[in-house]
């Protein structure tokens, strides 16, 4: 898959960064406004995919190997499990115990472990969907088959 024209590339280079930034914002403010980890992860993935489509698949595949996506995905999921397990060591020991101070409502630091969980989910969703989306849409793997057939 080849990249697109220079105009598109420049616009996407600017916009892609903004989209990813917006994804981070949505992830971090999930406990205050609509959004959250899943939405943030999907937006980040959309930003990355936009850049991949504009700059072409080969360049992207040099930068992002599939196993990087898989590792990040596993890491995000494991982080969520670890957050769950940390509850065992807290005061009211039970898994998924919200052990952090809940802070003041409407502040970024409120919500105890909710923002942390959101970040973990965003990492996992962003990495996982980027990997599978590139595999499905660009046909990174299956394109090879059709040549063979």
């Amino acid at each position: 898959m080849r990249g697109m024209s220079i105009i598109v590339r420049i616009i996407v280079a600017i916009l892609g960064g903004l989209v990813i930034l917006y994804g981070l914002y949505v992830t971090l403010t999930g406990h205050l406004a609509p959004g959250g980890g899943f939405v943030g992860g999907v937006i980040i993935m959309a930003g990355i995919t936009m850049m991949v489509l504009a700059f072409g698949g080969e360049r992207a595949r040099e930068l992002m190997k599939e196993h990087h996506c898989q590792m990040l995905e596993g890491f995000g999921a494991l982080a969520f499990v670890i957050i769950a397990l940390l509850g065992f060591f807290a005061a009211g020991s039970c898994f998924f115990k919200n052990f952090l101070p809940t802070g003041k409502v409407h502040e970024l630091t409120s919500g105890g472990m909710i923002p942390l969980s959101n970040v973990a989910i965003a990492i996992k969703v962003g990495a996982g969907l980027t990997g599978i989306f590139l595999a499905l849409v660009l046909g990174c793997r299956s394109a090879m088959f059709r040549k063979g057939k």
Partner: protein
Amino acid sequence: MGIAIYILAFVFILLGVYALIAKKNVIRIIIGIGILEYGVNLLLVLVGYRKGGMAPILANGQSSANLAGRAVDPLPQAMVLTSIVIGLSITALAVALAIRLYDKYGTFDMNDIRDLRG
């Protein structure tokens, strides 16, 4: 009016079931999966709606008691979020299977994709 809304939501779901059972095209089956997901999500959102309700987000300076008196039911919304994710996952897996089926059989037609008998 409320009864009609619920029944139409169920009709929408049954359209998805019809697409899955009666249609023989892989893409159309994936579309049917999408219809089913939308239908169930629609039903859940409808169930949680309170007339004239506000979104279950505490505004600055609002008291919790006030929110509890006015907001729509938040639990179905949490369930729909989970259900949306499950729907996306199933669709992704179905598309992956469809791509590989096309690689192997060269068609999207389930009438031609039948090596298994019985």
